[in-house]
């Protein structure tokens, strides 16, 4: 749930409760107030009664008065006990043809020497109308007030939380690999300023760690080159000795082989680190077809003895902008890979068109998940050779060129395809 909706929801439920509670309270209070005022006017009338009765001189006057004043009922005193306060009765109204409520105050009075009971009557019809009108008005007011406050609150909240939303967007888009951008904030609210400082602190620290880690790989690889060079040269001097026994030769042979492995691993790591660190310029124009042809020629020393044929099928010229040396490495790596897993005398096809560059070679299916193919150091018993970096280097080179390297196995053939519009 969004922050704004959350607060709006709370406001709304509070206002609904308020409105629902206020309706009966308003009703009761208004009712009481109205009846109170009606009662007061009845009492006043009763008090003023002697002022009227003193003008009555005859029975005719009395009859006239009775007939003129409808709110007045004159009846003979039957000696019943009268209530001191006004009370409510329901009577059938001949005008409105329905029962209506009246407020009645009875008083004893003596006119022309006779005792009467005078009932002052006041209709309560207006009361209902008034209460309805007042209630309607109040509820409308309340609704507008609530709606207004919710809207204003929403509006203000939106403005208050604006810096928060911006920081959130910044964090969502935050990418360790991208150039450093410090988040700046122009709100004057202490909490948000603190948040900004904390966010910047955090992002800068993680970037520093990330850069240090990347640098470490590169530096470590560089530093390893010299000791490797020393070992390599010493081994080479060692094998020049005339007195070398067969046993010693074998030992040195194994060492040389292992050393070559370390060397390649180191070079591979260095290459990956430098690509990760964006140290390769991607500003050369080159033809992919030419690179493929060069690579096939360069790898003839591998294909010739195994009787493997590499067929290059293309009818288009594909030019790319990128790093020619790196791209050549990718092509060579994929070719070496195809050669390595091809049986003697088989044919490897390299197909180039406007959408892709594809290397296919016949072979039995992979004995492991193909998703593991491009991962660094994902080793399998079935694949004992290689250091597990070659394909991840190729995938990285492809992605540097905004392309995608994919693997597929179909009808007894391995397909390594570089899709030009891959990313």
């Amino acid at each position, binding site marked *: 749930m969004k922050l704004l909706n959350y607060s709006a929801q709370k406001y709304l439920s509070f206002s609904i409760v308020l409105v629902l509670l206020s309706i009966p309270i308003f009703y009761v209070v208004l009712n009481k107030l109205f009846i109170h005022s009606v009662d007061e006017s009845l009492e006043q009338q009763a008090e003023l009664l002697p002022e009227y009765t003193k003008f009555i001189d005859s029975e005719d006057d009395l009859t006239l008065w009775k007939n003129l004043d409808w709110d007045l009922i004159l009846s003979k005193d039957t000696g019943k006990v009268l209530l001191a306060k006004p009370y409510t009765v329901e009577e059938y109204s001949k005008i409105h043809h329905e029962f209506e409520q009246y407020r009645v105050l009875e008083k004893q009075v003596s006119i022309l020497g006779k005792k009467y009971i005078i009932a002052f009557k006041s209709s309560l019809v207006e009361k209902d109308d008034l209460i309805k009108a007042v209630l309607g008005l109040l509820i409308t007011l309340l609704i507008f007030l609530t709606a207004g406050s919710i809207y204003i609150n929403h509006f203000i909240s939106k403005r208050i939380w604006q810096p928060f939303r911006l920081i959130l967007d910044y964090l969502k888009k935050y990418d360790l690999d991208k150039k450093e951008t410090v988040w700046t904030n122009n709100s004057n609210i202490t909490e948000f300023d603190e948040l900004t400082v904390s966010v910047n602190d955090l992002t800068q620290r993680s970037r520093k760690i990330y850069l240090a880690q990347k640098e470490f790989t590169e530096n470590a690889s*560089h530093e390893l*080159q*010299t000791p*490797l*060079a*020393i*070992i*390599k*040269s*010493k*081994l*080479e*001097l060692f*094998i*020049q000795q005339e007195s*070398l026994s*067969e046993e010693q*030769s*074998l*030992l*040195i*042979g*194994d060492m*040389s*082989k292992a*050393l*070559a*492995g370390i*060397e*390649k691993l180191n*070079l*591979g790591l*260095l*290459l990956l680190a*430098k690509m990760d660190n964006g*140290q*390769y310029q991607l500003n050369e124009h080159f033809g992919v077809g030419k690179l493929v042809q060069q*690579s096939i020629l*360069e*790898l*003839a*020393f*591998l294909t*010739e*003895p*195994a009787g493997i044929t590499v067929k290059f099928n293309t009818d288009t010229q594909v030019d790319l902008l990128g790093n020619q*040396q790196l791209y*050549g*490495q990718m092509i*060579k*790596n994929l070719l*070496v*890979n195809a050669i*390595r897993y091809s049986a003697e005398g088989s044919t490897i096809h390299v197909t180039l068109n406007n959408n892709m560059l594809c290397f296919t070679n016949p072979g039995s299916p992979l004995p492991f998940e193909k998703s593991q193919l491009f991962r660094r150091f994902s080793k399998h018993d079935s694949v004992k*050779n*290689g*250091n597990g970096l*070659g394909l991840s280097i190729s995938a990285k080179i492809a992605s540097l060129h905004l392309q995608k390297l994919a693997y597929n196995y179909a009808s007894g053939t391995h397909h390594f395809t570089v899709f030009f519009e891959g990313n």
Partner: protein
Amino acid sequence: MKILIIEDEKSLSESIVSYLSKENYICETAFDFISAQQKISLFEYDCILLDIMLPDGNGLHLLAYLKKLGKMDGVIIISAKNSMEDRVLSLNSGADDYLSKPFHLAELSARILSLIRRTKFNGQHIISYKETVLDVDAKTLHVKGEIVILTKTEFELYLFLVTNKGKVISKEAIVEHISGDSALYLDNFDVIYAHIKNLKRKLADSGTHLKTVYGVGYKLEL
């Protein structure tokens, strides 16, 4: 032939001296920028091996200094950086070749020989070994006057062995030499065995000079 080795890593420098001395080169060493600069200004060398990362200065500045003195013949840069930019920068600054660490001494020796051949003997392209004659430019081999057809790989392989004659060459050095930068993805050196076998067959009698050093590599007799 006089060679100056400018390399701060003494152990590596010693290895180079030891290997090259056996090939009748006169080697001198410099372990830092200052002494290298002094030697360059005082003496003449046929070839200079220059490590561009020196403790007290950038080797590329020495290259500029050599240029100023007009002694630019035969500089091979050796660097631990193995970066394209360094290679391009070095070659653009007038270096003749670039070799990244760790390298095989056999490879270094072949590069030096090729460089000296280019600079000192006006690109002499004929190399003889016993009864075989290699034409480096035409990439042809004559054995006892008869032309022998070799594949490009076989020719490069034989040339590499001839330039390092009398030395034991490891399989790794051979693979690196003939595979160039695709060596990074190679892990199987058996392919060399097949090429050596084919080469020996084509050389016929002359092939007997090529000895296998069990488990290590190959050696062409002196």
